[in-house]
């Protein structure tokens, strides 16, 4: 894929993950976020390429191996996060800082 699109390994891994392992809703959300915030300042390609957004991926490895199950990405989206954003958006938007930029 890297050769076909003439891109680096990290980018091609990210592209592969997005097209195969990441759910459509998360892809859409990532696209929106990267469009508004810019990839260069938001995420390294590794974060996507190594599967942290992929369905079934777990951060439970190494010392955290026993937490593999609670730390696994599920298909279902949690409604908690959306709820947080609507209820507590003010927490990180103090006056005097332009958070939109």
């Amino acid at each position, binding site marked *: 894929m890297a050769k076909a699109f003439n891109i680096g390994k990290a980018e091609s891994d990210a592209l592969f993950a997005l097209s195969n392992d990441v759910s459509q809703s998360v892809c859409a959300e990532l696209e929106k976020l990267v469009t508004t915030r810019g990839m260069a*300042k*938001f995420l390294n390609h590794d974060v996507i390429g190594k599967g942290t957004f992929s369905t079934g991926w777990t951060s439970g490895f190494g010392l955290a191996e026993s937490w593999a199950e609670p*730390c696994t990405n599920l298909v279902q989206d949690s409604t908690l*996060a959306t709820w947080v*954003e609507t209820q507590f958006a003010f927490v990180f938007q103090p*006056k005097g800082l332009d958070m939109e930029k």
Partner: protein
Amino acid sequence: MNLYLQRLVIDHDSHPQQLRKPVSFKDAVKVHQACGAYLFFLAKIQQIAPENQFEAIRTDLFIQFKAGLLDPDLLHIVESQVPANADIKAVSAFRLAVAKSTGDMTYLLYFLQHSFDAQFESWTSIFFPLAK
């Protein structure tokens, strides 16, 4: 997974623009583990909390989780305990939640007066100068 994505966004947006940097895989894993452990303990609290109080408890915990205040305790637990025997009171903020859930008034009053207020006062003092 949505919670994890939201935390990445919140962490990114909470920094001034000139201090923002892309999240590395290593940092992302930490955030992911914190989210997993947080939801794990939230489910435990839901089991013991009275139904009419859970929403308020969750609200309090979310404010702290969003700010990253729970991360050090959560990550310590993830690396030092197993889920089956994980001590919910090892996270200081959860002690208050458990006290609320079980009606332990002595614990509740202690934390209301000392721990909870102190945490928010310290954050207020950080944010208010920026607002002026």
